[in-house]
């Protein structure tokens, strides 16, 4: 599988400007279970790519392949090739810590560390040695909070625990935390599923702004959200990538019957 994939897209080939990440023949097995089957997908630079599909179809599984979070799962096995800027991220030589600094992640459930707001954001820059402490670090923390649209709300309580914020604020804190290490790609797994409509709107707005500097992949169960924030949409079904294309096209003129059925709410 791997050799086949490599023969079609050799790792040495320079990536086109537009393609940030490329999955070729990606398979994921959880023990015996074949959760992701032969997925070929391109993630374009400075775009928001939405992954949609019914529950259990492998959206999260695919997302977690992109920064090797599946490594953490006992018994998970990934085959195929996933390139970041033309380099295989599953390469033996690649440092997974370095990869995760370049491909950040925001989780479904807001998960701030039980530390102060400041320390939550400063943690990433500290471990990656982006800034030791003092004014440099302050600068990173403040600019990350500003870009996540949270600074105004928390500027007087940076030393209070991050867990004391509201759900929506916590999720934006997590986004700020991900931004703080200056990743190139941000993966978001249903980032708004625990949020109310107003907090959701704020996060969506934020995602749109972040597109300027980052490449974003977002998993969502909300068709409207996918339509609102993404430029490209990929539809998964039972572990397979059924259809991928411009968001507008997927929602107005889907090529596949399954896609049509899902977006019109006939199943899922």
């Amino acid at each position, binding site marked *: 599988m791997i050799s086949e994939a490599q023969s079609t897209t050799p790792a040495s080939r320079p990536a086109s400007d537009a393609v940030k990440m490329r999955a070729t023949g990606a398979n994921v097995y959880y023990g015996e279970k074949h959760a992701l089957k032969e997925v070929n997908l391109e993630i374009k630079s400075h775009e928001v790519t939405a992954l949609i599909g019914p529950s259990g179809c492998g959206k999260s599984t695919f997302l977690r392949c992109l920064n090797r979070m599946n490594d953490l799962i006992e018994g998970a096995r990934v085959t195929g090739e996933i390139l970041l800027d033309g380099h295989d991220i599953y390469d033996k030589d690649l440092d997974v810590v370095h*990869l*995760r600094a370049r491909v950040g992640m925001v*989780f479904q459930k807001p*998960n701030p*560390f*039980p530390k102060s707001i400041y320390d939550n954001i400063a943690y990433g820059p500290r471990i990656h040695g982006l800034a030791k402490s003092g004014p440099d670090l302050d600068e990173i923390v403040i600019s990350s909070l500003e870009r996540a649209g949270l600074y105004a709300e928390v500027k007087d309580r940076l030393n209070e625990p991050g*867990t004391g914020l509201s759900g929506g604020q916590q999720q934006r804190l*997590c986004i700020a935390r991900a931004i703080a*290490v200056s990743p190139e790609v941000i993966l978001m797994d249903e980032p708004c599923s625990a949020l109310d409509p107003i907090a959701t709107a704020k996060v969506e707005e934020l995602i749109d702004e972040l597109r300027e500097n980052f490449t974003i992949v977002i998993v969502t169960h909300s068709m409207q959200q996918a339509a609102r924030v993404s430029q490209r949409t990929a539809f998964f079904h039972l572990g397979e990538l059924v259809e991928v294309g411009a968001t507008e096209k997927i929602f107005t003129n889907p090529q596949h019957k399954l896609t049509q059925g899902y977006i019109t709410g006939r199943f899922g």
Partner: protein
Amino acid sequence: MTELSMTQSAHPKVGTTGADAEKRLKARYRAEKRFRAYGLVSIAIALLFLAVLLASIIAKGASAFTQTFIELPVTFDAETIDPDGSREHSALSAADYRTLINAALEKKFPEIAGDRTAKRDVQRLVSQGAELELRKMVLADPKIIGTSAEIWLPASSAADQVLKGNAAHDESSGLSEGALAKLDLLKAAGTLKRRFNTYLFTNGDSRQPELAGLIGAVVGSFYSLAITIALSFPLGVAAAVYLEEFASKNRWTDLIEVNINNLAAVPSIVFGLLALEIFLNVLGLPRSAPLVGGLALTLVSLPTIIISARVALKAVPPWIREAAQGLGASRQQMVMHHVLPLAMPGILTGTIIAMARAIGESAPLLMIGMVAFVVDIPATPVDPATALPVQVYLWAASPERAFVERTSAAILVLLACLAVMNATAIYLRKKFERRW
């Protein structure tokens, strides 16, 4: 199936209203009340046992914390203490202070002069520790030689026990009729006094019950425990972290897990035998030393610490780990920065509970020889020593009546140590507890 139950619940008899339903509701309340009553009764029984245990130990042991003293007119006779007049330290410490006490007794009871039996009877009222007291006074201040003073000196344990009412007022107490009569005289004259028993906390073990103290055992326990904690905490936490956070789950780790759980249930005397074989016979470490005791107790407490540390690590929610690794923290950074700090209260609690068990262990210490009669207070962890629970064992086996109350007193001291450690565990847990 679902259809059937639906039709049934639609039936009025099994609905949530009506006489039947009310009856069932009442039965449920009754069951609930009964259940709570069982719990209350169990707690009451447990408390009762605890109260009985404590009451009996305190009733037996409280009197050991005081000690009878006799006031005697002592003359620091220069002829007896220092015939050469050199005032040399060696001469002063080798002097015969018993003679001074005997003289003081004759001064107190002039009627015994010339009567050897009466003299011996009276001498039995004063502890051998009185000589040590006088020597201490002389060595501290040699200028008192040649003067005389009324001095409070420790009574013998036999006299002490009679006065405390622990022994009968007859010959079975170990005192003769004559001695008892003199004791009554002293009491009537107000020259007897009960003071706090400092010997219990400043002396090592002794054949004389009134001079026997716990400090040697306390120091022995302290050294053993210090070594235990210094070894078992880092080892246990490292093992737990490795098994929980780094090891892949396979047949080997399962095997290790089962074995650790089994080790926690192994009787401690088996660890004592192991320690005897490895540390004494193979490695040739000194017998009766707290160092070896600490090593043996490390074997005993390691499984408990590993298990409790693993439980504490497991209780750290997985999303903390994901959050850290998602940011690019390495596994080690994730553990050191997030998981371990969050698990620390649980780990500390488990460790202190393991230490509380270790301080009360006697069986493994018996095996490695920490059961000897040791008078000297151990200066280092390789000196021979006993430990608190072993001291309890030794005193409980001593025939002298005065050791009965001292055994209970030693148990009280041991319980106090346990209470302090458990209170520390609760304090640490409260202090470091975090919510997430």
